[in-house]
């Protein structure tokens, strides 16, 4: 592979990896606070996009309020999941919760297929300039810059939130010592709702940015396209580390991109999926705590 192609692959990888990082942020957030692997994280995002599309394209609401409505939808879905599923299974083994969230994801996908129809929808990008600047021959559009900025900004914000604010510290306390936290007068239930709502928000942002970058979306597109890379990114970075999610996302994105463009993988169909799988297994067997996680 020539240096030129290599550089292009890296640039594209960083951009898609930023999207995975956003998903990973939400996953780490939920896991850090309640130990749950949220398999519905992708669908929170898909629902946001479908709502945005419905409200903006069909009903005609202008873009910015429509985005807000979409985010409200994903937050609402996350809160509903928390209340109906997670709370009921609070004491159940974590694997049971995993299966339950997977069920939520499937329900969302089936509703999208039913009500949204099983077809790909193409969208015109909201932000104009496609060729803001060129990096190694890869055009970096405004949309892509936005993804990177959003990821960085959110990661920083969340980091500050957890380390500086009372609420953030309370969430960390809950994950380690729920009983003691409750005794201190903090409502575990409220915290749980808050966390899930936040995860929903993150997923919504991730979904909208991803759809905007790909300029198309379909039923379950976040689950099919970003959930596994997102989990891999979270594991790679360390399931309990927020900055790790960011780092992990970029690594997964770049690795996947290299696999797809590398001529070494020409004979293998679906090289991206293979690379992500291999990465996941390698990390879990060699360094299960991830790059930035604590052993």
């Amino acid at each position, binding site marked *: 592979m020539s240096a030129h192609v290599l550089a292009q692959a890296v640039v594209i990888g960083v951009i898609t990896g930023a999207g995975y990082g956003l998903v990973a942020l939400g996953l780490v957030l939920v896991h850090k606070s309640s130990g749950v692997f949220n398999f519905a994280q992708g669908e929170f995002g898909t629902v946001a996009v479908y709502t945005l599309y419905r409200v903006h394209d069909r009903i005609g609401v202008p873009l910015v309020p429509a985005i807000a409505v979409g985010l409200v939808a994903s937050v609402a879905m996350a809160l509903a999941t928390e209340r*109906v599923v997670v709370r009921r299974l609070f004491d*159940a083994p974590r694997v049971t919760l*995993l299966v339950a969230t997977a*069920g939520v994801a499937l329900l969302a996908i089936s*509703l999208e*297929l039913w009500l949204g129809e099983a077809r790909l929808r193409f969208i015109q990008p909201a932000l104009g300039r496609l060729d803001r600047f060129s990096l190694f021959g890869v055009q970096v559009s405004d949309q892509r810059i936005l993804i990177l900025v959003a990821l960085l900004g959110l990661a920083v914000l969340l980091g500050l939130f957890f380390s500086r604010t009372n609420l953030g510290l309370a969430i960390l306390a809950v994950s380690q010592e729920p009983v003691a936290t409750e005794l201190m007068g903090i409502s575990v239930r409220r915290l749980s709702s808050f966390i899930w709502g936040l995860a929903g928000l993150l997923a919504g942002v991730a979904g909208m940015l991803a759809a905007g970058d790909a300029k198309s979306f379909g039923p379950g597109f976040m689950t099919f396209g970003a959930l*596994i890379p997102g989990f891999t990114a979270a594991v790679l970075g360390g399931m309990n580390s927020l900055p790790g999610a960011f780092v992990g996302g970029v690594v997964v994105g770049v690795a996947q991109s290299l696999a797809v463009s590398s001529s070494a993988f020409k004979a293998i169909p679906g090289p991206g999926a293979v690379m992500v799988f291999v990465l996941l297994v390698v990390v879990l067997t060699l360094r299960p705590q991830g790059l930035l996680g604590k052993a």
Partner: protein
Amino acid sequence: MNGHRQRPGPAGWAARGALLAALAGLVLVVPAGRGNVEVHVFTQAAIYAVIGLSLNILLGYTGQISLGHQAFVGIGAFTAAYMVSRAGQPFLAGIVMAMVVGGLQALVLGVVSLRVTGLYFALVTLAYGTMAEESLFNIQSLTGGSAGQPAPKPAGFSTDLRYYYLCLAFLAAVIWVDWRLMRTKGGRALLAVRENPKVAATNGVDVKVYTLMAFVVAGVFAGLGGALLAHNDTFVVRDLFDFQLALVFVIMTVVGGLRNRTGVVLGSAFFSLVGYFFDKLFSGGLHVPGLKVLPKEYVPIVIGPVLLLYTLTRHPGGVGQQIRPLQRWLRGGRFSFKDTHERDVRVTDARA
């Protein structure tokens, strides 16, 4: 010490016999009067039961969750199709090869599961399933790529009805093997492991070996299911083995009732047949005023999650638990509703 246990009288036995006969008639005789397309659906129900039993071994006995089971099945399906179409082998060779490949691949995953447990293993199986769908099942020389691979029915069972009986026979064999295996030392060891691994280990049970064995058996059954599926559809395409199918398999096993063979068979058959019955009720799909039409293809994935969530939160024993009174009655006991509620679904990996 129990008091005097009442044995049912001849009328009681006759009633039990009649019910069993009715069930047998339903399964054996009714399809004979139906058209090919319907029999094809019934056959699929039997095959899903085989797949459910295979996942039950994994989920229920080793406690490992597999969200990539559709890949196990798919590998079996493509192997059988390849053997029959490309390698020109007879049907049985395809079946055997499918089981071997299924078992091997499960073994590999089992080895991985020894290092990676619980939640993380679930993740690995999900990634594995996706990789299989996008990569493995797309290799043109093996699977025909996106054009798929034909898998015609075997000579002698080339009509849908005959093939149905063949699949029923395979299902019966799988049930029997599963039953016998769980009665062996290995099976009982697995149950012990699931309950409490430390105690089991101190009693000399080699956890690892028995877990791997369970994986292999599950993989073998899944491979068989896949092969049967391939011939039923007479054409295998990778599109079938997607994320939704993986979840449907998990759902049908959990809703059926883990570790309850009858429940799993019923649950699997249900999910396979629900679309068919739905179509009978609402041919052309369900028209809800104000919403789009719900076609029969989406019914399993719409009600599946609902049933799953209901089962997990309310009746963790699933269908199997609910029919326990009936099972007891059939065996000659009293019909009572006691003990129909398990406290929670032990889907967990005991080692997690």
